[in-house]
């Protein structure tokens, strides 16, 4: 007998399986342009999920999440260029580790002194520094970006996989992103995740249960940053180029949009949000000059009609259609 406190692993695994199967089959049926968009989407989903681990789960608002995406990307590109013999998986892991270390350093200073909007604006300022650094540091290509990032060959001991060939890198991105999403899912539903949720609800109360609030916030920040850094590292070889734009604040706004659009209180919120956004962008790609107005209007409509995001809105609809009498009774009890 499963406790209602258990994580919904069967349901979520089934949903994930369907999504991954569809994504893996994409190259067989979809045109290349769409496959490229979907590969990018997979990384953006990781980006959104990791941000929401901070916001929806822990209550930390970061306005500078893109800087970790960029840091991971540039770190991997630089390592791959400097040490061409290094195993690419080590490069990706290194990018993640670098993101974690940097997040811990920043978090130790920033999280202690400031929270809420201050933390948000502080991360924004730091990400602007990263952006300016990337756009003026010559070895990283300045405004024009880091060019010629190769898709590596994966040496698996017994055999080799050339990720540069065909759709291999796409498949690699989908599988790796799934793994990163699973990490976020696991953190979110683990004992640590429950503690984070408690902190998000009432940090002071959580502290009086013996929860190390500062430590857990730092942990969430570090995990989210590390996961995003790996996503950034995967993005470099996907585009075969990185420009400082990946650290720009407009990219930092993306995971916020994804999470709020999809719904912050559900694990799947950022997934739905990112997918919705990608559909909007893809759908309006040929409507030159009108895309801003269309995307802006749809976003606005969703916020005004479904506060709580798409999933939150669906949830509310479902509850409303369920027998109202029962809801009332439960409230009374």
């Amino acid at each position, binding site marked *: 007998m499963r406790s209602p406190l258990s994580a919904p692993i069967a349901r979520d695994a089934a949903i994930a399986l369907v999504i991954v199967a569809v994504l893996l089959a994409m190259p067989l049926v*979809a*045109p*290349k*342009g*769409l*496959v*490229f*968009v979907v590969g*990018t989407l997979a990384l953006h989903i990781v980006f959104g999920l990791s941000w929401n681990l901070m916001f929806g789960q822990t209550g930390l608002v970061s306005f500078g999440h893109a800087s970790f995406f960029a840091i991971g990307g540039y770190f991997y590109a630089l390592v791959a260029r400097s040490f061409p013999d290094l195993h690419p998986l080590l490069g990706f892991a290194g990018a993640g580790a670098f993101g974690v270390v940097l997040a811990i350093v920043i978090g130790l200073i920033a999280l202690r002194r400031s929270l809420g909007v201050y933390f948000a604006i502080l991360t924004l300022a730091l990400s602007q520094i990263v952006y*300016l650094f990337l*756009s*003026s540091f010559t070895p990283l*290509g*300045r*405004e*024009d*970006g880091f*060019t*010629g990032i190769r898709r590596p060959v994966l040496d698996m001991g017994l055999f080799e996989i050339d990720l540069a060939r*065909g759709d291999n890198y796409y498949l690699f991105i989908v599988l790796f992103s799934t793994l990163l999403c699973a990490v976020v899912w696991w953190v979110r539903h683990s004992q640590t995740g429950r503690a984070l949720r408690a902190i998000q609800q009432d940090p002071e109360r959580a502290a009086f249960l013996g929860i190390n609030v500062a430590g857990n916030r730092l942990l969430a920040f570090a995990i989210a940053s590390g996961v995003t850094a790996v996503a950034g590292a995967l993005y470099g070889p996907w*585009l*075969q*180029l990185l*420009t400082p*734009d990946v650290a720009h604040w407009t990219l930092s706004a993306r995971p916020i949009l994804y999470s709020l659009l999809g719904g912050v209180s559900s694990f799947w919120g950022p997934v739905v949000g990112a997918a919705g956004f990608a559909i909007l962008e893809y759908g309006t*790609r*040929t*409507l*030159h*000059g*009108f*895309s*801003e107005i269309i995307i802006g209007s749809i976003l606005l409509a969703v916020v005004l009609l479904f506060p709580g995001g798409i999933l939150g809105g669906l949830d509310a609809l479902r509850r409303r259609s369920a027998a109202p009498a029962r809801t009332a009774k439960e409230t009374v009890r």
Partner: protein
Amino acid sequence: MTFDINRRELVKALGAFGGAAAIGSLAAPSRAQGGSIRLGLIAPLSGSQEIVGRYQLAGATIAVNQINQAGGILGRQVELVTRDDKANPAAGVAASKDLAGSGVNLMFGILSSGVALAVAPTLADDKSVLVVSAAAANELTHEQYTRNVFRSADHAYARQRALAKLVLTDFPDTLNWTAINPQTAIGASNWDSFVDGIAQYSQEAGKPAEITEALWSKFGATDYKNEISQLMRSKSEGLYCGVYGGDAVTMFGQAAAYGLTKKFKVIVDPGSEFIIANAMGKNTPPGLWSGFHWYHGAYEGHKINDDLYNAYVKETNDPHPAGYVGETHTSVLAYASAIQKAGSTETDAVIAALEDLEFDSCKGMRKIRKEDHQAICDLNFVQFGPDEGSDKGWKVTGHRIIKDEGVSEAPTPGVPIVFKNKKA
């Protein structure tokens, strides 16, 4: 107030191009239609460079219409498919993949060098060809050379060295130069090429020039006062204003109070074309030489030039087509000649046909080199000045064609360009 009407009409007319293309692309089925040849334009049709994208779209549309009216290529009609790159590398790659996925293997356009450099390495996988119509980065035909990329337009090295040749001819005594440049690779590449030209041609003339260290500003900066103050203290007589487009407008606007344009004897600009004059009107810096992709006034009497110009003016009522109009037009003509020559639209056949292709264009004959896929063509320059009498407030005070006779480097695909004369 003819000027106002013109501007409004221009915007409206260019908008009409956009709308038509949008509907065209939407209606286009995802598989190649039997018969028609589909060419894919990748241009910044939204975002910060949308103005240029619309010029590119206009040039491409006119070329396609002209070809179709003349019976098409190989008896087949040409269809234009457009994709927006937002002047953003990721969007550019997505656009080229999208085109390849819809069965369009022949692409052209691209304004931003960053986009071109991002798209180039992905083309071989997709079995596509790209003819670059604007992006000028030298790398594209050097260290980032790939077999699938051609450039039918001029490149930074040739244009800036030609500009150096021009100023040394017209102002042989202006030998001390400085610059304000954006911190971009193209900014650095332009300046290095210009210095290379100044050094070589001034030495050949027996009066070696002197180069003062350039100032570097942030791309998209909003305040140039600190830089302008520094320029005002400079000892140089010639100013190379490497900041371009909207940044140049901001810079000259803020510099007006300082009298910057009076301080320097000669001011040159790598390629803002009409942008500075159009935006600044009466405050256009007098005597400003600007690099052009194509200046219609320099080729009056040449049929392709006149037909293109007339078609453009007829559509838009705008008498000042930017060079981008001519360059995308040229790329379509390059494809037309190559497909004619190859008798096929298959990627490998078209690549083979483009190599060593000689064809006529709005600025005369061009030749695409086999080795590095760079076109050798004329370099155009226009001189501007204020015109109190006219509504628009500025006029063209001169124009020049520099023939590419030893201006371009020898082809060295795969190897970075060498600035032999960097040290003055």
